[in-house]
């Protein structure tokens, strides 16, 4: 199948229009396979993507570029019970997950 998602990259354009990721600590909720993560993670200081879909997270980890290995991590975590201390992140992204 020759599906292309957002070939015009509108999502990336609008995401960057609304928020500056440079040097920020990001929590992405509902990261799935990391499709959106790769659109901003290079600019961010660190990114943690969470999702309850283990298979999608496996793909995300396999697809993670070498230069992002120390900046991007993934976790099978529910948004209702975030295993992080208070005030850990500068930006939270609800990625098609609300």
């Amino acid at each position, binding site marked *: 199948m020759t599906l292309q*998602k957002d070939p*015009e990259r509108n999502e990336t354009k609008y995401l960057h229009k609304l928020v500056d990721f440079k040097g920020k600590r990001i929590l992405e909720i509902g990261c799935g396979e990391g499709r959106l993560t790769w659109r901003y993670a290079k600019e961010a200081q660190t990114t943690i993507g969470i999702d309850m879909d283990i298979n999608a997270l496996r793909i995300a980890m396999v697809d993670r570029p070498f230069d992002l290995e120390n900046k991007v991590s993934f976790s099978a975590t*529910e948004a*209702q019970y975030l295993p*992080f201390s208070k005030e850990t992140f500068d930006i939270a992204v609800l990625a*098609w997950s*609300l």
Partner: protein
Amino acid sequence: MVHALDEIWRVLTSNGVLIDIRPLADRWPVEVVSTRSFKETGRLVDLAEQVNADEASDKALKEMELHGWFIREQEEFFPFFYSWDTSSEMEEFIAEEWADFAGLSDNVKQTTRSAWAISDADSRVRVRVKMLITRWKKNQQETMNEHRHHRRTS
């Protein structure tokens, strides 16, 4: 859903920002496009799961806003395209992946097939999904007491 927003509030810094990106049910248009031409061939049917998801999200955000946890700063709509080489590939995808969210009527299916069949060689079939992106700022000072109260009682 509201509890998740509460958790997000907790882990964000005092100047933290919440970005919500999501599709909205809006009878998404089906289009046949090439470098030379454009034709809208119809619209998908919104199915219950997408409509219910939108309503639940709106309700949770309204509650979040009422509590004063976050302040809405900016909101925009934009198109997100799903694009295929052929109409049959689109049909297959919608049937398999969007079975609960959006439907394709026989009429739109036939119109799209016909339009694609007589279109340019580089034509693609696409669905224009309506997206909403909202920027929320964490409201630290105004709601600490109220927020603590909510966390104790929920």
